[in-house]
């Protein structure tokens, strides 16, 4: 199945693999990323960080630092306390330190900031600051965090007597227990989806430029959600005069986000405070180590996963119990009513009526975060749990995991499908996707080969993941961030000569919005996409939106673009009727022009109609040609995918080679196949990364053991397989252009396919589960323990 193009290549609407408008500047080194910004009088900030995971600050001695040439100021929590800026709210209504006044809560936490005339001087100053600590025993293991003997970490919270953050549950507990009690087959695994980090190649940073003369802050920063950040800045610092109309957030070109640039980090707030106090621009650019060690982590869910079913392979129920390690504060970037994000999608692509899910979140002495790295608000964890358990169940009853999936898929006729946890899946054809993936990879042939290899003692595994995503948050009745409903927006203004500028409330970090939003408008109006300039990221000019994360851009702002363009088409129709002296009902549209039914020679192009809107508009009609739309989605979109992975494992060393990986994605109608494929390639590599290479490791004292790229193993071109991709197309019925989000699907879907393949290879030796990342050592150790080598 391929997207049918309604527009010519010259117009470049939906379905064209249009080359990117962004590339010209990036290929010539003319992007404008935050560290490229230079302002007159700009100062540099560096940050003193804690060497300990949990310690009292006895004294911060800035004297030597202030003598370092070029150092102008050292800012501590006590300085910020005077302005009530030493704490800030998190997105989950918890509180987070900007700079500590008394206690540090994780290794690498910000302790003090140095402001200097150069970044080298700032670093010298950082080394000269002396901090005396009283070290305390930290809480690192979340399973021990609720022990009565564990120290209560958040003594700042009145009445807090333990390290428990919240309890959450969904589903029918009694019914689920009854099904489990009577089911023929019950499988259970304890799994850890480990703490990982997005490690976008550009780290986080900002230039805070406060003008005392104008009482105005311009904040250039690496943010995926510039408008929301502007509001947050006003909420945090409105009391010192930085009210929202006096704050302009500019998110320039961003060198990758992956969810790591959604949160407000202390560095941003300290830079604002420093610029406010000193009256000069202050630049803060963190190092990679700081980025890995202190910025938002992803995952860290410990899941007790259970599945009940019949002996012949009918899933009857699932049960998931999560222990969520949130670090020292709950700063996970979730919609406010969803503390576990969309984890409740964990019933997956399967048609069964009963589930019960619960989660408890725990404070530990680690940095905050949780929601990042293409997780779609915890869907990565949900999909890993259900897809691992589906294979676990298939293994238990000796059934082919592909067949087991066919036997349990939600049938395509059943959509819109009501899940037992309350989601309404919009559309899907799961069988078509899996069938296509199996054909592409020759599934039957691979199983035969595997049988032959097993007979020879060779390790080969085949893993499947047939996942359902949930993206495009979200409908205003349920979804908000800090109370702001999760709509998004588009504002299209067409110039007299028929060229346009359009601005959006989202913010690309490489996903190609400058190209694809233009394609949506081109589809609706017939104006060539080349002639439509797209802008995002400047809160003074772009309409308010909630930003780009959780694959929400196409479902929300993409919808807004189409609706706003349709408002303009309605206006164009009125002008065409006026100019052609016919009734509006007598007009037909084809991309780029209106013509009279039955008399196609009588027509007006969109360019002529736009010109008329400025030069010869009908009496009583507003002049000009522009429209805005704030789109409140009626539902989320539910893209899906069928992924199959083949691995070969060296029995003696545990080395795993991904031989092939076929990914069939279904994101409904496709705006730009080239860009979707690029997103899938990147997302798959960010799937193999947590599956095989990446995890953030802490020792018992809270020291991070791999906080640099020396041993936090981001895959290179050598580790990354040659991805084979394809698609089926099942449009979203509620979306204006039938498109679903897709950017995170591959990272959601790939890790369980890889884990399933590896466990499949090892299953002859009685291995039923391995936690990701599945490293050669882990494989070797498991084989050794089972006596296989």
């Amino acid at each position, binding site marked *: 199945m391929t997207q049918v193009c309604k527009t010519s290549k010259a117009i470049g609407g939906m379905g064209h693999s249009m080359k990117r408008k962004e590339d010209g500047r990036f290929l010539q080194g003319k992007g404008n990323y935050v560290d490229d910004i230079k302002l007159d009088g700009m100062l540099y900030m560096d940050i003193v960080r804690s060497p300990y995971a949990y310690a009292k600050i006895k004294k911060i001695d800035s004297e030597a630092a202030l003598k370092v040439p070029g150092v102008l100021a050292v800012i501590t929590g006590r300085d910020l306390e005077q302005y009530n800026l030493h704490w800030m709210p998190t997105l989950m209504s918890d509180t987070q330190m900007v700079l500590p006044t008394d206690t540090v809560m994780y290794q690498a936490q910000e302790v003090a900031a140095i402001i200097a005339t150069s970044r080298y001087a700032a670093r010298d100053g950082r080394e000269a600051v002396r901090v005396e600590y009283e070290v305390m025993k930290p809480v690192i293991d979340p399973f021990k965090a609720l022990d009565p003997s564990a120290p209560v970490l958040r003594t700042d919270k009145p009445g807090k007597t333990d390290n428990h953050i919240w309890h959450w549950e969904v589903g029918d507990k009694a019914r689920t227990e009854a099904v489990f009690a009577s089911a023929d087959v019950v499988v259970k695994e304890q799994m850890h989806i480990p703490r990982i980090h997005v490690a976008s*190649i550009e780290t986080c940073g900002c230039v805070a430029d406060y003008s005392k003369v104008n009482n105005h802050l311009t904040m250039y920063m690496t943010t995926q959600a510039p408008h929301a950040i502007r509001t947050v800045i006003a909420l945090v610092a409105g009391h010192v005069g930085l009210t929202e109309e006096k704050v302009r957030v500019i998110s320039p070109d961003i060198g*990758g986000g992956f969810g790591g640039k959604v949160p407000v980090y202390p560095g941003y707030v300290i830079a604002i405070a420093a610029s406010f106090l000193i009256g000069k621009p202050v630049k803060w650019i963190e190092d990679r180590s700081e980025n890995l060690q202190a910025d938002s982590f992803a995952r860290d869910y410990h899941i007790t996963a259970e599945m009940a079913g019949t002996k012949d392979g009918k899933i009857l129920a699932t049960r998931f119990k999560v222990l969520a390690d949130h670090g020292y504060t709950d700063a996970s970037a979730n919609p406010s009513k969803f503390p576990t994000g969309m984890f409740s999608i964990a019933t997956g692509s399967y048609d069964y009526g009963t589930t019960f899910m619960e989660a408890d979140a725990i404070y530990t002495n680690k940095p905050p975060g949780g929601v990042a790295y293409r997780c779609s608000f915890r869907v990565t964890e949900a999909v890993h749990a259900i897809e691992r358990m589906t294979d676990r169940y298939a293994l238990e009853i000796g059934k082919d995991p592909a067949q087991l999936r066919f036997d349990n898929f939600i049938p395509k006729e059943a959509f819109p499908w009501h899940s037992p946890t309350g989601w309404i899946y919009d559309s899907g054809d799961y069988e078509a996707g899996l069938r296509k993936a199996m054909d592409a990879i020759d599934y039957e042939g691979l199983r035969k080969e595997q049988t032959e290899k097993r007979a020879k003692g060779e390790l080969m595994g085949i893993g499947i993941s047939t996942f359902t995503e949930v993206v495009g948050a979200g409908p205003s009745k349920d979804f908000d961030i800090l109370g702001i409903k999760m709509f998004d927006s588009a504002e299209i203004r067409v110039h007299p000569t028929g060229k346009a500028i359009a601005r959006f409330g989202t913010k690309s970090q490489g996903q190609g919005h400058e190209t694809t939003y233009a394609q949506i408008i081109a589809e609706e109006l017939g104006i060539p996409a080349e002639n439509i300039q797209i802008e995002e990221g400047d809160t003074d000019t772009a309409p308010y939106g909630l930003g780009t994360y959780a694959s929400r851009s196409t479902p929300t702002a993409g919808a807004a673009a189409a609706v706003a363009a349709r408002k303009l088409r309605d206006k164009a129709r009125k002008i065409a009727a006026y100019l052609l002296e016919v009734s509006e009902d007598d007009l037909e549209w084809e991309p780029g022009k209106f013509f009279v039914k039955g008399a196609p020679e009588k027509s007006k192009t969109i360019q002529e109609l736009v010109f008329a809107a400025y030069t010869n508009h009908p009496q009583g009609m507003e002049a000009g040609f522009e429209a805005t739309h704030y789109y409140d989605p009626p539902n989320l979109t539910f893209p899906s995918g069928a992924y199959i992975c083949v691995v070969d494992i060296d029995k003696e060393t545990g080395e795993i080679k991904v031989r092939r990986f076929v990914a069939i994605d279904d994101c409904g109608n496709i705006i730009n196949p080239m860009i979707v494929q690029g997103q899938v390639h990147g997302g798959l590599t960010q799937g193999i990364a947590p599956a095989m290479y990446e995890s953030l490791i802490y020792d018992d004292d809270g020291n991070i053991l791999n906080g640099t790229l020396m041993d936090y193993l981001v895959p290179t071109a050598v580790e990354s397989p040659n991805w084979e991709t394809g698609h089926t197309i099942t449009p979203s019925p509620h979306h204006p252009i039938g498109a679903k989000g897709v950017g995170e699907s591959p990272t959601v879907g790939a890790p369980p396919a890889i884990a399933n393949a590896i466990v499949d290879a090892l299953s002859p030796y009685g291995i039923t589960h391995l936690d990701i990342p599945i490293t050669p050592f882990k494989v070797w150790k498991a084989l050794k323990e089972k006596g296989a080598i």
Partner: protein
Amino acid sequence: MKQITVTVNGQPHSAEVEPRLLLVHLIRENLNLTGTHIGCDTSSCGACTVLLDGKSVKSCTVLAVQANGKSVSTVEGLCAPGAALNPLQEGFKENHGLHCGFCTPGMMMRATELLEHNPDPTEDEIRWGISGNLCRCTGYNNIVKAILYAGAKMRGEEPASTEPQFV
């Protein structure tokens, strides 16, 4: 402070620098050539790759004073402003070998040297050849295609189709 002269993209530049100044900062801050990026602090990512006397180096791991009297090529020198893209730049655009663009300059500078030494590399040679350059967006497939495209173009051959292939 030490006086140095470095030829960058054919233009000689003189500067008085601290001996500890990294070449990447000389390029970015003193010369305002901000195409060269910084992605790590352990010489791992290759976002800062430039050519130093024709050899690809990670400019975060070279002192500016070590470049004294030498010639540096950066992404800004790949094509003149407003001129046609060079075959590598064209290859990256045509094959969608970049998303956020942050690794792109370093990736292309590395590939420049790679193709100079190995004008007709295999896919495997390309993957190993760029293994000092991390990319977080593309998954590398299209970067490999882009370099194959540039190699073909430089050899005067017709590059393979740039249309995305689907199973």
